């Protein structure tokens, strides 16, 4: 047997004609015009614009103390790295909301690899390994980062709500990662604490925590929908 013979070997069973007619009648009855979702490229640009806008708003609200004290070299390394990570997360978020899209990477792997890359950039730039007031200052940054992730998360939801996630957990994780990058960008613009462990621990933690929140939200709403289906 060769693989080419498989279609011939398998019995050519067809669905019941009455069933197909019933499905077709039900679908035709509800066939109203729909506006196709925008092209993936446009959605990615919209997401990145939303992230830039919320980051700028966050920086303006809290003060651009961090970016003012950073050297040009550090700025030239940190923000392009953040932008690259955000671009990949935006692509992953858009693809997760479109059935049959190319999946270039799994959202969980993207989140882990992106955080590791950013950590490497931070280790390369900053040299102060002292801890200082590690926990109190860290909690302030973590809270601010998570708070400023929320507007980006809201923008993601607004832009992608017309999508259709076949894998809700992956879609939630990708969207949460993207939202977390909004919070991280605000912290890099605002925070003037350049201790390595502070940045690598508390700033970067915003991304996985936000991703986790996105995943949990997707799981929760998915469970509610499944429960509703079970009750039918």
């Amino acid at each position: 047997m060769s693989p080419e013979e498989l279609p011939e070997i398998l019995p050519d069973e067809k669905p019941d004609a009455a069933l197909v007619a019933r499905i077709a009648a039900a679908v035709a009855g509800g066939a109203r015009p729909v506006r196709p979702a925008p092209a993936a490229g446009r959605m990615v640009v919209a997401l990145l614009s939303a992230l830039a806008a919320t980051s700028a708003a966050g920086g303006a609200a809290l003060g651009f103390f961090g970016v003012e004290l950073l050297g040009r070299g550090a700025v030239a390394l940190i923000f392009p790295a953040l932008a690259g990570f955000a671009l990949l997360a935006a692509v992953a978020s858009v693809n997760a909301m479109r059935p049959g899209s190319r999946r270039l990477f799994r959202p969980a792997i993207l989140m882990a690899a992106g955080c590791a890359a950013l950590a490497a950039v931070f280790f390369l730039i900053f040299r102060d390994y002292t801890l200082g007031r590690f926990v109190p200052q860290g909690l302030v940054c973590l809270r601010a980062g998570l708070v400023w992730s929320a507007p980006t998360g809201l923008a993601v939801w607004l832009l992608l709500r017309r999508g259709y996630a076949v894998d809700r957990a992956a879609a939630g994780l990708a969207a949460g990662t993207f939202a977390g990058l909004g919070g991280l960008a605000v912290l890099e613009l605002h925070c003037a604490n350049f201790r390595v462990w502070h940045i690598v621990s508390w700033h970067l933690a915003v991304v996985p925590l936000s991703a986790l929140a996105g995943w949990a939200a997707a799981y929760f709403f998915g469970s509610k929908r499944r429960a509703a289906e079970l009750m039918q």
Partner: protein
Amino acid sequence: MQPSPEVEELMVRYQQGDGAASTALIERLSPQLYRFFLAQVVSRRYADDLLQETWLRVHQARHTWRAGEPLLPWLYALARHVRVDHYRKARRVEDRERQVEELPEKSAVPAPERWPDVERMLRELPESQREVLLMLKVSGMSIEEVARATGSSAGSVKQKAHRAYEKLRRWYES
């Protein structure tokens, strides 16, 4: 086996609210979807349910397909998740029934109604390999289309298909 561009045209008209186009699309694509479900671990009755559920999801998500993109990966991405969701739901129902009625012999996926050798061999394959093989050889999709439908890479699809062919050949020759 490959759908002609006409299928994509029908989908565009369906998005525009043309009921006749949706009917034509369902009539054209239902046989291959049905075969896809039937060749997996479900009976005829469950294949009917999955077919209905798939078209319901297609209807809900029809705006997410864009003209110019291949239709089959989009359709099969929905279909395979219908199957996965159905499997999970069946397991939950089965668990509840077990708790209440203590009927361990009652299975959510009933015994198959027909077991030709090839189907039995297909059932022996790991789910991911069987799915790839059916999409490639029964639904006539390309490797790239299968990769899109399953959310994996083309390399992974090739590898799964190769392993599935090897196993089928071995079983068939033994």
